[in-house]
Each structure stands twice: as C-alpha cells, then as structure tokens.
C-alpha cells in the first residue's frame, strides 16, 4: 500500500468533542453582548423566587450534593488506583522487553 494512501488514512478528519458548536455559539453570544442582564422590574421577582426555592430545597440539595461529591471522590480515587495498577503492570512488561532487547543486542 502506498505511503500517500497511508498518510491520507492517518489524516482522516476527526470530530471535535460533543457540544463544540454550542460552546462556540455561547462564546459568540457573549462576545456580541447577546447575554442580556435582567431588567430591574423583574429582578426582585427573581430574587424572591430564588430565596423561596433556597429555603425549601436548600437543605435537601446541600445534603444531596455532599453525598454525590463524596461518592464522586471515592470513584475518582478508584479510577486512579486502577490506572496506577495498570500502569505498573505495563511498566513491568516494558522493562522485561527492554531487558530482552538489550541482551539481544549483545548476542
């Protein structure tokens, strides 16, 4: 197979992460001043609604968030443990192979 064919295959277009277009549009809106501040007339209503919601849901949400954070941190540590063990074993394999390679060179 030709080199040009392989280069073309290697340079096949890739997609950006999901939500890329939305992020750009959000930045564009922001840069264009498209995000409007709430008008003063509505501001007090928003504040009142927020306070009421906070009073009702605040305690529950905080407890939920704390639980989820603790669970997330635990899972995060497990991921790191798993990656560390995987890396140790791959490193061991690599060292073995390098030793074999080194001894082959002198044979």
């Amino acid at each position, binding site marked *: 197979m030709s080199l040009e064919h392989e280069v073309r295959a290697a340079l096949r277009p890739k997609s950006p992460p999901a939500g890329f277009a939305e992020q750009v549009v959000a930045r564009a809106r922001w840069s264009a001043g498209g995000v409007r501040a709430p008008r003063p007339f509505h501001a007090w209503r928003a504040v009142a609604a927020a306070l009421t919601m906070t009073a009702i849901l605040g305690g529950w949400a905080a407890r939920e968030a704390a639980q*989820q954070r603790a*669970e*997330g*941190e635990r*899972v*995060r540590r*497990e*991921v*790191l*443990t*798993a*990656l*560390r*063990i*995987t*890396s*140790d*074993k*791959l*490193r*061991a*394999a*690599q060292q*073995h*192979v390098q030793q*074999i*390679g080194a001894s082959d060179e002198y044979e």
Partner: protein
Amino acid sequence: MRRLILLIVVFTFAAAPAAAQPLKLDFPGLAERATEVVDVTLDAQMLRLAAKFFSGGAGSEERAVRDIVQRLEGIYVRSYQFDHAGAYDRRIVENVRRQLGPTWKRIVNVSSRNRENVEVFTDVRGDAIIGLVVIAAEPRELTIVNIVGPIDIERLARLEGQFGVPHIRIEVKEKR
C-alpha cells in the same frame, strides 16, 4: 422483509460493537487467601460520575484522564497479594484467557521462570481498540486488569508519565 431488516440491524450491531464485553472476574475464595486485595469495579455509569471529578482545564493532565475515562464502558481490576508462593491456582489465568474471543490479540507476552509473567491483550475492531486486558502473574501476586470501551492510543500516550502512567510502547516484541 421486516425480518430481513431486523437481521441486518442485528448483524450490524453484532459486527461493530462499540466496546468489548467485560470479562467475568469472579474468583471464589481467592480474596480470603490473599493478604492484600484490590478490587475495582467501575461500570459506565460510575465512570461518567468519576469523569465529573477530574477538572477540565484545557491541556491539563486531569482533563486528559477525564477524556479517556468518560468514553470507557468499564474498568475492572483484581489484584491479590499472598504471603507465600503458589497460593493461587494457575488455572485462574487460563480461565481468563479462555474468555477472550477471536478478535483479541496478544500484543505482549513476557514470561520468566521465577519472576512476573505479563500478558497484554487488545480487542481491535477495524481502526479501534475497544478492549484491553492485562494479566500479571507472579508467585505471590496475581493482577488482572480489564478495560472495556474505546481506548484511544493517542490519548493514552498523552497520559505518559502522568498519574504514574508510564510510556506504553506498543512495539514490544513477543516472546512465545
């Protein structure tokens, strides 16, 4: 006609799975005999949760881990240490190997008589690696790692040296 369409759909999905199937890594009684046990079982849902706890700053190491983790379908690690040699049945290793179908390829096999034996297998479909299994067996330790899901070598390579993840050299020679 409807049956034909159904068959095509079933065949299409069967022919191009997005991830390898997780292996069965249940070894009854083994943990009781071990002095140290690491048992990590993280399915897709857990991994999505974990991904949220890796910060996403552009170019950061944490982001690189997050990018890898959030695409995976599972990470399963079983690691046992024993206080004397020969505490586990070598058939366990054979049992794990037997679960690997024809799409799996052994890319590394290092074996030495008195030291650690390491085998690395990958499940490659088309352009993509969708599964990784590492079996490391030594007299007093047995470790089996099973990573399920699309494994992007380039992203893995970017983890090199970070969080203790080493350079993963794919060009290792096989020793049969």
